[in-house]
């Protein structure tokens, strides 16, 4: 029933939030749409699975996913972004597209294109609050997301790294004058976004107890819609848009059928692009200043 679907939607929304934040970090700071994030999300899931299947503790899976994806993201930044940092932003976007193609091929070759499954569901216990039943894994997804978002917020607002990120978001040249190394900062931005996407991958993999090389395209791409709805110039828009879109999608599946879910999600995105391109949280629309 409704509340149950709402809870399910929030879970999906939490994953969307993480991936949308990932897109938003790079987009907000560099203006680049990193299409490889969808595959960093997918890879994170595989890294996490590798840990779980090796009977190692779950927190390690999360770390493996985040670290692994952050590392790959660093490679993408050096090889796929740096050569194009002065080119029009569509060029590095195409370059990240190249990487996403490579990464998906690599995953398919290493792990096969059939779903990789956990033999038993992790955290399968369910808790019942009246009419609502929520599983431990759903709680884990929500909990981990909240923690990661809080950490990111702290990082961005209270640390020198965060200041550097915000400085580069304002203006690369000014940032350089202020002594902020733009190259190192973009590397950090990429790695942070990789870590977030990787975490999302681990979470979704544990939630579904299965992973395929195609979840990047199935779920990761839709997070672009979440970023747009939240507002590409304000990364915190993802906090609102993630749960919103997650709930919208789950409700659509529950009441309209799973065939039109993408139609609704992307339809929402296009509506926002046309009517309020700055997104729900994007301010007056003229204010391009506050990006992070």
């Amino acid at each position, binding site marked *: 029933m409704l509340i149950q679907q709402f809870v399910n939607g929030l879970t999906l929304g939490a994953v969307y939030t993480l991936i949308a934040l990932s897109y938003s970090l790079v987009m907000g700071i560099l203006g680049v749409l990193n299409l490889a994030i969808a595959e960093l999300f997918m890879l994170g899931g595989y890294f996490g699975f590798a840990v779980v299947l090796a009977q190692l503790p779950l927190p390690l899976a999360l770390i493996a996913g985040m670290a692994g994806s952050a590392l790959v993201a660093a490679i993408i930044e050096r090889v796929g972004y740096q050569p194009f940092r002065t080119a029009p932003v*569509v*060029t590095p976007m195409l370059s990240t597209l190249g990487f*996403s193609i*490579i990464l998906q091929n690599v995953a398919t070759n290493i792990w096969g294109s059939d779903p990789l499954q956990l033999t038993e569901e992790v955290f399968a216990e369910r808790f019942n609050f009246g009419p609502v039943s929520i599983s431990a894994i759903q709680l884990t997804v929500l909990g981990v997301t909240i923690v990661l978002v809080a950490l990111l917020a702290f990082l961005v607002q209270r640390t020198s790294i965060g200041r550097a990120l915000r400085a580069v978001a304002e203006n690369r040249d000014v940032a350089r004058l202020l002594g902020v190394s733009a190259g190192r900062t973009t590397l950090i931005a990429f790695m942070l976004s990789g870590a977030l996407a990787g975490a999302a991958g681990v979470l979704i993999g544990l939630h579904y107890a299965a992973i395929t090389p195609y979840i990047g*395209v199935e779920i990761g791409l839709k997070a672009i819609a979440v970023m747009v709805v939240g507002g590409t110039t304000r990364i915190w828009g993802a906090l609102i848009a993630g749960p919103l879109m997650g709930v919208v999608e789950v409700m659509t599946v529950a009441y309209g059928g799973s065939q039109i879910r993408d139609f609704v999600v992307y339809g929402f995105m296009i509506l926002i692009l046309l009517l309020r391109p700055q997104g729900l949280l994007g301010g007056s629309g003229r204010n391009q200043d506050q990006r992070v």
Partner: protein
Amino acid sequence: MYYAGILADVGILVLGALSVYIILSTGQLSLGNAGFMGIGAYLTSWLTVQAGLPLTPSLLIAALAAGAIGVVVGFPALRLKGIYLAMATLGFGEMVRSFFLNFSAMGGPEGFHGMQHVSTGTIWIWAILVLVLVMVLETSQIWLEIRAVRDDETAAGLVGLNATSIKVGAFGFGAAVAAIAGGLFAHHHVYIEPGNFSFERSIDFVLAVILGGSTVAPGALAGAVILVVLPEYLRFLADWRFAAFGALLIGMLVVRRQGLLDRALLRLARPSSPA
């Protein structure tokens, strides 16, 4: 038989790549042309199977319809620039695919069949016709205007060019060409399903243009050949050919951003060409 299959794929990819090229010529990157291809595929199939029309008029009607949709969709969308437009077109392509998934009148997820098979030769006749048409168009006034809009939209406006109508027109034209690719695809494979018109298909078109040459029409042909024929020669790469293409894309962007063919190269091949 096998080579006919490959040749057919190249032909369809040429048309798809041309559709992206036409739109890219005004400076807009479309990541959703598979959507127009799907519209063309389904509409053409409906016209031949349900309405009993012959292929050619069906293709033309579908092209016109897709072109009209392209104009209607393009008009508000082309207020967006660069990455925002790319995202909108991505969304559009996915929406079309999702629409047909839900469109049970033409099979929904089970797909649609019943089309009459069309030969590789027919596909190539269309591909060559459209390619030549675009190449002729490239010598026209409107193409100079298109190039001006791509270069510097503001300066183009100040010389009297209506950038919006040029961009919207190109979008519609590209949509029409993608629809023709779809109609031919449907009649060659005699079975279509929404999964044929996914984001990956849109990316194939973009890949062909970027690799083959994004500033001249024959680039679409070169790119299509590269994408389909190269894996046949790189059999040892069989499992890794997608990764190879990804690497090739990145490499091309670094080394030769305009792709394989460009105006300078073509001028060398044609000794007697004026400006």
